[in-house]
């Protein structure tokens, strides 16, 4: 990190995602990345947008947590390039993102195991197995 860049992480409500992203789009911010961190029983999503030029070098990340099974709206209507990130997050983490324009139906990486990056709760009995 350096002094010339300003980075900020803002927590938002999941229902406000589309309106916040629309505001950034009107202000001509660029989509930098969409990040997902698997957690027990859900996931934490961070949408990062960047700008430069007269506003200075800035990156703003919108962050929220969803629990398993909650639907997240897709931002491909506003940023069409987001389809790659959203497909990957849905495939690897199992977050239910709906209405992606350009949907690969779960075949982005076509791995042997479904949602390999998802954190599953390990039940205490499974590792012991049997009676000692």
């Amino acid at each position, binding site marked *: *990190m*350096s002094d010339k*860049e300003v980075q900020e992480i803002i927590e938002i409500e999941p229902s406000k995602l589309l309106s916040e992203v629309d505001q950034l789009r009107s202000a001509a911010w660029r989509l930098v*990345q969409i990040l997902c*961190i698997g957690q027990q029983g859900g996931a934490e999503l961070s949408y*990062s947008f960047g700008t430069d030029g007269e506003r200075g070098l800035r990156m703003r990340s919108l962050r929220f947590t969803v629990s398993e099974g909650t639907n997240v709206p897709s931002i491909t209507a506003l940023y069409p390039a987001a389809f790659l*990130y959203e497909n990957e997050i849905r495939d690897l983490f199992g977050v239910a993102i709906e209405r992606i*324009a350009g*949907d690969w139906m779960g075949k982005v990486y076509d791995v042997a195991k479904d949602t*390999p990056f998802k954190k599953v709760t390990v039940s205490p009995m499974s590792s012991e197995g049997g009676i000692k």
Partner: protein
Amino acid sequence: MSGENQGAHAPVEENIRGPSVIPFGPQHPVLPEPLHFDLILQDEKIVGAVPQIGYIHRGLELLVEKRDFTDYVHVAERICGICSFMHGMGYCEAVEGVLGVEIPDRAKWLRTFWCELERVHSHLLWLGLAADAFGFESLFNAAWRTRELVLDVAEETSGGRVIFGSAIVGGVSRDPSKETLERCMKALKSVRGDVARLSHVMLEDPTVQHRLVGVGTLSKERAYELGAVGPMLRASGYDYDARKRGYAAYGEVEFKSVVETAGDSMARAAVRIREIEQSFAILDQVVAKIPEGPVSIPIKGMPPVGECFARLEQPRGEVVYYVRSNGTRNLERFRVRTPTFANIPAMVEAMRGASLADVPTITLTIDPCISCTER
């Protein structure tokens, strides 16, 4: 697959035949790494392309939970062979951001030296592959032969030709002496002459211009909206270079970003070739100004709980690293958003309207590094 991005299908007008679909890749002589497209053609013109990735997904991001955070740099370096030093360095920068440590000055300058060396070798590699994409094999071999001298310099200073292995958390692991660095810069003089000769062929030769000018044009607004980064964005006229952040020693060297306005494949070629010359100028400044001192600091104990974003400029564009630590020796999450990942939508858009024979050229103009994309 259901739908494609932007939903652009050519209307079936007078033609009785509808559009035809031709697969491109994953094995193709021009592709350095496997990438698949379903090209939707109306006669010889592309009206849409559906990309498909996932042939070399290795799940490297999951491995960070199983390895010590100081050891993982050796795995991060091997995400990709061409941009390997910057992956290692980006990981180290993000971890050092979480730890809150400042590396010694000499380490920062040495990292800059190796970054620019990597940029030179990567662009020369790209020059060869782009020439091969439209059939100019002798330029391909000449560019790669020139690149061998750059790889010799890399081996002499860092020990490895493509995987430098010199970025570690806390600094760098090697300390080449001033005489070694000056001797290497002298050896690179012949490379500069070669690059001038090759750039004259690539940019001025009428047969090459016939293949590159006007092919795959992307306007400035479209390139920005689609999230393109790196030479793809700068060739369309938008000036954004992540080196302006001032990481490593970039705050103290002078350079101007290379911008072209035409937005076609020739402009992208020109941006990369001029970037090679710019990298040599930066290397000269680095070797002249590098201070003496230690090259690494010891890293001990558990990292604090925290997270960090780091953005670097790889040869292909802006790369974003994210590291989150939960207080143990294994990190919780490591994420790389590589430039090719961001450039794929722009590439698909650039293909629209081109003819089938131009598809390899357009694919190569984003400099695809699919190993990075899929980690």
